[in-house]
């Protein structure tokens, strides 16, 4: 991912999960964050699809439960890799 894409990803998580400014977004996990409920998860997935131009099927959505998992998923699909 480009630096720009990483920044965008972090902003999406901060906004959709309403994270305070001092939280290290790269360490965020669903299990340890009360605000990351079912509706927040759906909102997050929709935002990722919209901003990164991907379609995330439900089976994958179930597994995207941390920042690290989401970044890995987007990397695998070349989302946010920039243009040559």
């Amino acid at each position, binding site marked *: 991912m480009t630096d720009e894409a990483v920044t965008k990803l972090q902003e999406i998580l901060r906004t959709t999960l309403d994270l305070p400014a001092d939280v290290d977004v790269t360490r965020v996990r669903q299990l340890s964050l009360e605000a990351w409920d079912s*509706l927040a*998860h*759906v909102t997050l997935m929709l935002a990722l699809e919209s901003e990164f131009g991907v379609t995330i099927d439900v*089976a*994958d*959505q179930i597994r995207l439960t941390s920042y690290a998992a989401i970044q890995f998923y987007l990397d695998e699909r070349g989302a946010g890799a920039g243009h040559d």
Partner: protein
Amino acid sequence: MGVATEGRVEALLATDEHAEVIAAFYRDAWGQEATAHAVVESRRRAAAENVAAPGQAPPTALVLDAGRVIGYCGSIGQRLWDGVAEHPAYWVKGLMVLPAYRSGPIGFLVVKQLAALLPRAAALVVAPAARRLFGAVGFADLGAATNWVRPLRGGRLAQRIDVAGLGLGLPRWIVAGAELTQRSGLATLAGAAVGVGLGLMAATTDRAAARIATAQDREAPSRAELDALWLEARGALEASPVRDGRYIRGRFDGEGDGNPYAFVTARHGGRLLGVAVVRRPRVSGDPRLRGVRLGTVSELVFPPERADVGMTLLGAAARVARTAGADALLCTTSHRAVATLLRRQGYLRVPGNVHLLVHDRTATAPRWPSDVASWWLARGDSDADDVF
């Protein structure tokens, strides 16, 4: 009808073909001894009792992962009165997602799938996360119905109850005070004093309606009597689930000796003026109740302008619950007229936690009142009296 996804996860409408996987879900989620046969039988009964679409099983949405049910949301047929006419509708009931899949998209998927199938629906929901989900698919949150509790055996109640754990939203000072009293051993005495005081208050008000005859019965009044009562009562109501003979007899009557409900009637000159349905207490497995026996006013029908009838019914309901061994009697209501009577009957108000959510996307959607106090709700609605 289903929303197939690219992976193995799909949201769809349940049919009899899903009976085996639904039974497995019941066993996983609720620990029930369910079988496919029992699921099919239950669907047939529900179809026969469906007042919204007679003969059709009320819609149930499922989310399957590789054929296994991981999310479930059911419904119960009902009709809603809007102050002018009665309309077919559904209660949404039984939203459940397996623990491993919670906080993901499954809850949203299953609620969305069901909401799409129900043009007019209502739900009684406690959990804030679930309320947000319903809100996201178009339900309006009209607010919480209030819980009222009348101590019948104050000493026993004060000694045993887990005040903080009940989840009734009591103010901190009440919880702290109750716990301190319990620890100091004063609870029995204090509780008994409160019980006597509230009992006297209720007895005073009971006398106001002494000319109305009350009776307790294991069987419901006739359908014709209940229909006539409902027709009389509904005229003063802005919104309510329909509480006619078909509903009350179908919902509360039957099961022989195992029927947990008792019918309390108020009559004058033989004419039925009102009916209350009391759920007898059971020794609950709920650890918060610590053996406290809680009776429930599951249903209450009377013309709202007849406060004398309401007072009589509530007084008789308390006597029935006490005779059945209840330590306290719970009544959940949203309507302002009933709230006034409960206060006069010595019930203690505890903040409501059961929210009424409504959505109506029919072409001729009535203007449902947006304040919950205009709705006539009861604890038995949507089977919410199963909780205790």
